Every structure is written in structure tokens, then in C-alpha cells.
């Protein structure tokens, strides 16, 4: 089904999304005149537009195809992803979004510097922004090639180069202004692609009956079968007719009634740790947080978050439905294979959409491409701002003119875009899900504790911030290295690293605040005041 064979409708859909994105992105470049336009879209983005753009920025291909595939393979434990990814926005809304916007900067390293008057903390902020965004973008770029090949038949290498090139081009010229418009559009393509085919599938197959099949069955999963309605065991085959998974691999997946039961993938400890990483990690992702700077005021930042919860909630509610249909409806061609003959479970949505018609497959392909474009463009903005704004403009060459900073910004986007393409081509076999999970765990252990405490605790000190962010990040790294070196099986660091980061911030701040001079305390108070006083911006304006 893939194997280099060009698939016309999905290919046309992908080309349509690419061209539309490029035209709109480049057209927006005309409105990108100042640094504020380039990094925060002139702080003039309305609630609906920003909510759509934030949703699109957040929903990568991992969400678009991966969550449904995870439900398909692992049953209930996959549903946690569908809810955990959205849940993070509650903490973001309750504790972070509006004060961060009111602080009125461009980037998270800006917050680190401004809140604690510390260049050292800005440098650490740059470090973790780059680590988190790099982990995320590597995963996305590897996914770009895999997805393009699977949905359109375009060879993997060309998929990475074409998509990477298009994204780099429109981000470099349009900056955040261009990215905002394209992300808004991409979100509605994605949501349409998730929902519309389900309206065709739902009347054809009774959803609750499909789930009850699994509920009643205590042995192997049985499915009605696409043709004929005959119950038969689902055997996942590649297009060559060989088994997609070996017997040992099949044992990793829950079957029968276990598929609907909890703990098919993780035990209790793993489930709780995963939830902590998803909830806290979302509230610490630099490319998401930066979007809140684009609202005109704090009140609108709040309403943007409310609508993000509604938009991505609608999106994620559909993912277990897709996973269930795939699990119970798929015929023998359940898994596409890539050039290397490896099964690619993430394409199960494409196969399932066949049941709704060929056009549905094209729609899903368009949604998947839109998901990749939107997330990679947001990550490119985060990476390039860390370099051009935080490092070049605020540390290396503080006297640079706006014109020089703008040139640095565009060069940084091109540089990071080229690096992302190169890395995507190099790390073809990288484990995408693991890298995205790691980015969440690191964000949860570094920026989330720093922001939550820095925004709400007046007496938090620079030393406390450094201790927390470094300890949280290092524990995440140690857990991952230990897992890679097979020292332990434990792979979800958040349950340890997040509390450790909070504890370090508390203890070190307590120890060091008393040693601050009155002048230093006043500086901390002024920054704290700027985060919360509604008169310090136009937050009182009705959203």
C-alpha cells in the first residue's frame, strides 16, 4: 500500500495543504515588519485565532496519528494519552498563562532573566529551551519522512527535504505572524479530518457494540470483519502477507478483555508517572508558552486557554473512537510497511479511514501533514528565538540594532531548519514516541516548577530557581540514561524529578532569601508585582 507506490488522492491533498500553507505564510511576511511582529505577532492575536494556533502548535502527528494508534494497540492505557495531553492546559490556565502574558516578554528565557534579574538563569533557560525543542523537533522531522512516505508514497528522503524546506521558508520570512495564520488554518484542517470520517464510520459500525465485543471476549480479540461480517481473529499482516508482528511482539499488546482493562501497558506507578509528565510537561513546553505572549492582554490569554481546552478536547475525544474502530474493524491489510519492510502502526488511521471511502483517506492525509507543519513551525520559532533573541540579542551583542536582530532571527530559522532536515535524515530509526515523551518529562521537570513557583512565590530566589531547574533536568537525564544502559526498566522520570525540582526550589530559596540585601529583595518584589497587578497591562479589558 505504500512501498513507493504513489497514492494520488492523498498526494494531492498533501500538495494542497503544502501550497496553501506556503502562500498564506509568505503573504503574511508583508505584515512582519518589527521584532515584535516576528517573535510575538505584534501581540495582536485574538482569542479564537490564538486558541486555534495554540491547538495546532500542540497537536503534532504524534497526537493526530499516534494516540489513536496507541489506543488501537494498547487499549485503555492509550485513552490516558487522549486526556492527559489536554489536562496540562488546566494547570497552565490556573497558574501560568495570564501572569506570563502580563509579564510581557518574548520568550521563556526572558522570564527567567526578568523575574530574577539573572543572566545566568537566562543562559540556563536557553539551554533547556534548546534541549526540549530539539528533542521534540527531531521526533517530528523523523516523523515527516515516515508520514509522507506512508500517506503519499513519496520516498522518505524527499519527504523530509520537501516538508522541511517549505516550513523553513515560510517561518523564516513570516515569523510568528505568518506561523499564527497558518497554524490556525492547519488546526481546522486537522479537526475536520478527525471528525468528518467518523460520521461515515459511526452509522456503519455500532461503537458500543464494538467495545462490548472486547468486554465479553476473554480470549483473542475477534472482529466482525470488514467484508461479510464474519467474526474472525484479527491477524495483522504486511502487504506482502507476512505477519506484521512476531509472536514475541504480539505479547506486548493486550488482547481480548485485557484490551479494555487498565494497566495493559503500564502498572499503577507507570500510569501515575505518565500522567504527571503529560500534565506538568504541557505547562512547561517553550513553544507552547511563547504563544501566550501573542495575545493583547492577560484576560485574552485566559480565554484563549479556555478555547484551547475546548478545541483539543473535541480533537482528543475522537482518538479513542478511531482506535476502537481500527481495533475491531480492520481487515487483513492492517499495517502499512515502509521502504525497509517495517510495519508502521501509526498508519492504521489511514487504513481505517478507507472504510469511510477513498476521499476520507485523503482528508486524513491532509490532517496529518497539517499536524506536522504546525508543530515543526512552532518549534522552529522557539529554537530560533532562543538563539537570535536570547543569546545573540541579550547576551552576545546587546547593542545590536533591530535590523541586525531581524537578520539574526531569519538566519537562525534557516540554520535550525537546515539542522532539523539534516537530523531528520540522519536519525531515521529514532524512537519518535520515546523522544516526545522525553521532551514532556524534561519540560515537566524544569520549566514547569520554575514557572509555577516563580509566578506565585514572592520569595523564590535565583539560586532556588537554578537548583530546581537543574536538579529536575538532571534526574530526567539520569533516568533515561539508566534505561538506555539497561541498568533499570524504569522509564518515566516525572514522578521523581518533578517533586524533586519543587523541593530543591523551596529548600534553596529558603536558605538564600535571608542572605539577600534589601535592594535585591526589592528587585524580586517589583518583578513579582509586574506578574500580578492587572494595572500593569490592559488585562482588565473585556476579552
Amino acid at each position, binding site marked *: 500500500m505504500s512501498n513507493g507506490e504513489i497514492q494520488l488522492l492523498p498526494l494531492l491533498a498533501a500538495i494542497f495543504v503544502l501550497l496553501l500553507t506556503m502562500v498564506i505564510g509568505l503573504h503574511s511576511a508583508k505584515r512582519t515588519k518589527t521584532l515584535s511582529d516576528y517573535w510575538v505577532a505584534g501581540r495582536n492575536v485574538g482569542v479564537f485565532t490564538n486558541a486555534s494556533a495554540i491547538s495546532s502548535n500542540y497537536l503534532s502527528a504524534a497526537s493526530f496519528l499516534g494516540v489513536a494508534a496507541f489506543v488501537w494497540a494498547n487499549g485503555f492505557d492509550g*485513552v490516558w494519552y487522549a*486526556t492527559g495531553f489536554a489536562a496540562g492546559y488546566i494547570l497552565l*490556565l490556573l497558574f501560568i498563562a495570564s501572569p506570563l502574558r502580563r509579564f510581557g516578554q518574548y520568550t521563556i528565557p526572558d522570564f527567567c532573566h526578568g523575574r530574577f534579574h539573572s543572566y545566568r538563569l537566562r543562559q540556563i533557560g536557553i539551554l533547556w529551551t534548546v534541549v526540549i525543542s530539539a528533542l521534540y523537533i527531531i521526533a517530528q522531522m523523523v516523523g515527516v519522512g515516515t508520514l509522507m512516505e506512508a500517506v503519499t508514497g513519496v520516498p522518505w528522503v524527499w519527504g523530509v527535504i520537501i516538508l522541511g524546506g517549505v516550513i523553513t521558508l515560510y517561518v523564516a520570512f513570516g515569523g510568528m505572524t505568518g506561523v499564527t495564520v497558518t497554524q490556525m488554518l492547519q488546526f481546522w484542517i486537522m479537526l475536520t479530518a478527525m471528525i468528518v470520517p467518523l460520521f461515515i464510520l459511526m452509522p456503519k459500525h455500532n461503537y458500543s457494540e464494538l467495545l462490548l465485543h472486547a468486554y465479553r471476549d476473554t480470549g483473542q480479540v475477534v472482529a466482525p470483519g470488514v467484508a461479510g461480517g464474519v467474526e474472525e481473529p484479527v491477524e495483522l499482516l504486511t502487504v506482502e502477507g507476512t505477519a506484521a508482528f512476531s509472536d514475541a511482539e504480539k505479547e506486548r499488546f493486550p488482547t481480548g478483555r485485557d484490551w479494555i482493562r*487498565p494497566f495493559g501497558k503500564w502498572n499503577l506507578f507507570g*500510569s501515575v508517572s505518565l500522567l504527571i509528565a503529560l500534565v506538568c510537561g504541557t505547562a512547561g513546553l517553550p513553544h507552547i508558552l511563547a504563544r501566550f505572549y501573542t495575545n493583547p492582554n492577560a484576560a485574552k490569554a485566559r480565554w484563549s486557554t*479556555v478555547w484551547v481546552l475546548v478545541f483539543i478536547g473535541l480533537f482528543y475525544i475522537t482518538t*479513542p473512537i478511531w482506535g476502537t474502530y481500527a481495533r475491531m474493524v480492520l481487515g487483513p491489510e492492517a499495517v502499512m510497511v515502509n521502504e525497509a519492510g517495517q510495519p508502521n502502526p501509526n498508519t492504521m488511521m489511514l487504513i481505517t479511514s478507507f472504510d469511510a471511502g477513498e476521499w476520507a483517506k485523503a482528508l486524513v492525509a491532509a490532517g496529518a501533514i497539517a499536524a506536522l507543519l504546525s508543530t515543526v513551525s512552532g518549534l522552529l520559532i522557539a529554537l530560533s528565538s532562543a538563539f537570535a533573541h536570547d543569546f545573540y540579542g541579550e547576551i552576545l551583542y546587546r547593542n545590536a540594532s533591530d535590523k541586525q536582530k531581524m537578520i539574526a532571527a531569519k538566519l537562525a530559522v534557516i540554520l535550525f531548519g537546515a539542522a532539523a532536515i539534516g537530523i531528520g535524515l540522519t536519525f531515521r530509526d529514532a524512537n519518535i514516541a520515546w523522544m516526545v515523551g522525553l521532551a514532556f518529562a524534561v519540560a515537566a521537570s524544569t520549566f514547569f516548577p520554575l514557572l509555577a513557583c516563580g509566578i506565585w512565590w514572592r520569595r523564590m530566589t535565583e539560586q532556588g530557581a537554578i537548583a530546581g531547574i537543574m536538579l529536575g533536568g538532571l534526574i530526567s537525564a539520569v533516568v533515561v540514561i539508566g534505561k538506555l544502559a539497561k541498568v533499570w526498566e524504569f522509564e518515566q522520570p516525572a514522578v521523581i524529578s518533578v517533586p524533586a525540582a519543587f523541593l530543591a526550589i523551596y529548600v534553596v530559596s529558603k536558605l538564600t532569601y535571608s542572605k539577600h540585601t534589601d535592594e535585591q529583595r526589592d528587585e524580586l518584589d517589583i518583578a513579582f508585582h509586574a506578574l500580578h497587578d492587572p494595572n500593569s497591562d490592559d488585562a482588565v479589558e473585556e476579552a
Partner: protein
Amino acid sequence: MTYEQMQAKQLKLSVLLAAIFLVSMFSVPFLNKTMTEAMIAPVLGIPFVWLFVGILLHIEFWIIAVVYTTLSNRWEGELADE
């Protein structure tokens, strides 16, 4: 009302709503462990825990978000009017 008082009110509201959110979400894995059969019993043809985590929690998030945003923005507006 001073801005410090308003900030304290906002923080109290945030903590209360966060507690509701955290308890409703993080209690599920523990309930799954201790009363598995009840959690997967079908409700409206769907295992309860699928319905709760897959749909009802999202609705709870929307309610929490609207309540917090409405009250917070109203308090800030009142402070600005004073």
C-alpha cells in the same frame, strides 16, 4: 480591594480548582487498581472508565476553565474600576 487581596483570591480559587482537577484525574488509576471490575462495567454500552476518562473528564476541564476565567477576569475588572 487591593491587588494583593485580589491575587490571594485568585490563588485560592486556582488551588481549589486544581485540587478538584487533580483528585478527579489521579484517583482513577488507584480506583482502577482497587475496583477494576466496577470501573470497566458497561455504562451506555461503554466501559465506565473509558467514558469517564475519554469524555467526562474533558467536560470537567471545560467547566473548571470557564469558572476560573470568568471569576478572575471579573475580579480584575472590579479592581480596575475602583
